Each structure stands twice: as C-alpha cells, then as structure tokens.
C-alpha cells in the first residue's frame, strides 16, 4: 500500500521541481515567410533577358548569370520562365545610343570595347531606361516581367594584416587557441551585379537592386574563376529570389507549458 503512495509523492515532487524550474518546454520548427519585395501578381511569365557584363574574361557574366537565374526561377517562382536566346544587350545599347543621339560622335564618352571597370558599365545604363525597346521585347514575349541589369565579376588582390586562430600546446601538452596577426597576400574575386526588373507591358523599370560579394583566398591557392563566380552568386541568390517570391526562413521557437 505504501509503494503506490510513495510513487505518487515522488511524481508530485518531480512535477513541482519542473514547475519551479520553469515547466516543460518543446522546441518547434517555425517557417517564417518573407513577403516578396515586388508585387508580381500581374505577370504570368518572366524573361531573364541578359546582362551587360564585364571584368574577368574567364567567366561570361551575361551567359552564366542568365542561365543560373533562369534555372533558379524555374524551381523557385510561380511564373513561367521564358526560354529564349540571351539578348545581345551590348549591341542593343550601342545601337540605341547612336539612334538616340546621332550627333554625339566625339561629344560624350564612347562605349568601351571591353568592359573592365564599374565606370565602363555605367555608360550602358541608358539601355535600361529605353522604354520603347523593352516594350517591344515585352510584346514579343507576351508581356513578361523582364529581368536584366549589369554584372561585374572581376579578379582582385589584397594584402595586409589579418587575424587568424592558431593552436598552441604548453609544456604539459595542453591545447589552446590564440589569435595571431600575420601579413598575407590574398587574391580572389568580387561580384557586383545590378538586377533591373522591367514591366514588359509598359517598358518601365519597376525596381532595381545592387549587390556586392567578394571572396579572397591565399595567394598560393588556385581557385577557378567559374567556381568563385558560383560561390558568390550562391550567397546573393536568396536575396534576388526574395524580390519575386515569398521566401521562407526556417527556424525554431520554444513552446512553454
């Protein structure tokens, strides 16, 4: 008879202790949706038209960015992705400049043969404001949302003092980690895309956003330009996609009793 009573008492005691310690808790996954930055409900199609790109000759920023964004949008967006050739935007920009200002030869800065710096890219900005051109493209592809812009992917080198952790062992063999400042020469790449979203019905720019990502390696470490390009694009893709579709942030919260 005493045993069941003792069990009840001990159960009550444990329950009381748990309550005193704040009660039971349950970790629960929580998906937080983030609303898209752009209202794309009026579009059924999306056209990644192409990009004015420059910087490294090892990566074709126009082709690679177009291909990557199309493939991401196919799986992450509700809109139908228009599958077509990448538009020759550099040529279009050159023609558009000549047409809009035929007397300009010798007046303004000429479009560069090779795009190596940010300043070179800026000379092509007028293309995105060419409402008639984008309206024509819109009509051709059934009024999609058009994604275009510029992509600068360039090598960079940087040297200086960096701090890194170093393992040390004392005379008794105990391990510890201490920060050590060393001079290092590093090289890598910087990726600076600017995404421009154009309404294919009106040809007007709806939204644009600039990004900047960089990666640096030890100078003696050889990293292919294309893999660095994908590494950097991978970092900014969630932000790009969150412009068009609801993105979900996965997290956990603690439910209390």
């Amino acid at each position, binding site marked *: 008879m*005493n*045993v069941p*009573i*003792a069990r*009840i*008492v001990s159960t*009550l005691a444990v329950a009381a202790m748990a309550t005193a310690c*704040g*009660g039971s*808790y*349950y970790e*629960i996954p*929580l*998906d*937080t*949706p*983030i*609303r898209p*930055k752009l209202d794309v409900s009026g579009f059924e199609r999306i056209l990644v038209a192409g990009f004015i790109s420059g910087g490294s000759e090892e990566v074709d920023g126009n082709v690679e960015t177009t291909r990557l964004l199309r493939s991401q949008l196919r799986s992450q967006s509700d809109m139908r992705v228009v599958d077509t050739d990448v538009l020759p935007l550099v040529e279009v920009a050159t023609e558009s400049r000549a047409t809009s200002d035929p007397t300009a030869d010798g007046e303004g800065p000429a479009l560069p043969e090779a795009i190596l710096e940010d300043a070179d890219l800026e000379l092509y900005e007028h293309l995105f404001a060419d409402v008639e051109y984008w309206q024509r493209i819109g009509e051709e592809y059934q009024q999609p949302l058009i994604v275009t812009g510029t992509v600068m992917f360039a090598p960079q080198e940087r040297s200086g003092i960096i701090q890194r952790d170093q393992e040390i062992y004392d005379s008794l063999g105990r391990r510890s980690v201490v920060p050590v400042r060393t001079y290092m020469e590093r090289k890598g790449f910087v990726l600076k895309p600017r995404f421009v979203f154009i309404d294919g019905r009106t040809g007007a720019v709806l939204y644009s956003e600039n990004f900047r990502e960089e990666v640096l390696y030890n100078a003696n470490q050889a990293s292919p330009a294309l893999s660095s390009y994908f590494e950097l694009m991978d970092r900014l893709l969630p*932000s790009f996609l*969150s412009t068009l579709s609801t993105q979900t*942030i996965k*997290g956990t*919260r*603690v*439910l*209390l*009793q």
Partner: protein
Amino acid sequence: MTILGCPMFNRTTRLLVLLCVLGTLGVAPVAADARDDAKQQVEFGIEVAQRGLWREAIYRWERATQIDPTYAAAHNNLAIAYEQDRDLDKARAAYERALELEPGNVFITQNFELFREINERTNRENS
C-alpha cells in the same frame, strides 16, 4: 526494514498526500484553479501545434490567456502562433506581455530576439 516501512516516512507521506488533496479540494487560492484550467488549454495547444494545426493552437492559447492573463507561457506560445500566422503586431504584443510577466525567462527572451531579428530583416527588405 525498508524505508517505506519506516513510521516516520509514512507520516511524512500521509501529510504530503493530505496537502495535495486539500489543494485539489479548493483550499488553494482561486488563482491556482485558473492556472490549472489555462494550463490544460496550453497543453492542448502544444499538442495541436506540434501537428501543424496552428489555428486551433491560437484558439487554445487565446483561451488560456483569457482564463489566466498572468500566464507567461500562454502569451509566449500565442506569440509564436501569431508569428507563424504572420500577424506580426499581435506576435510582438504577446511576446512583450510574456516578458513583462517573466522578465528573466531565457526561452521567452530567445524567442523574442529571433522574432525581432527576422521582423527587422523583413522590414529592411521591404523599405
């Protein structure tokens, strides 16, 4: 002789059981009854939330906060459910109320910090 056979232990046990019985018979303050009722709602809310039935969970935890407005855990859970439902203003208010009731609760503090981090990020991206 075992410890259970000890006359001293039996006296202590009987006293504890008596206290528990008296408690359930209404000797304990009325607030304890409200807390018990609210706790039942909270427990059920947790069960359904774990199955993804957040609407029902919201209903249960709202009931719990009505029954016992000083129950911090109910406000905390309700805040999480509102967060899941993207009702951010209500979520913030519920977290703030929970922290007001239990300022030192690390779980509530952590939940609220995570909520604020995501909420601020969303606002930044929308601005």
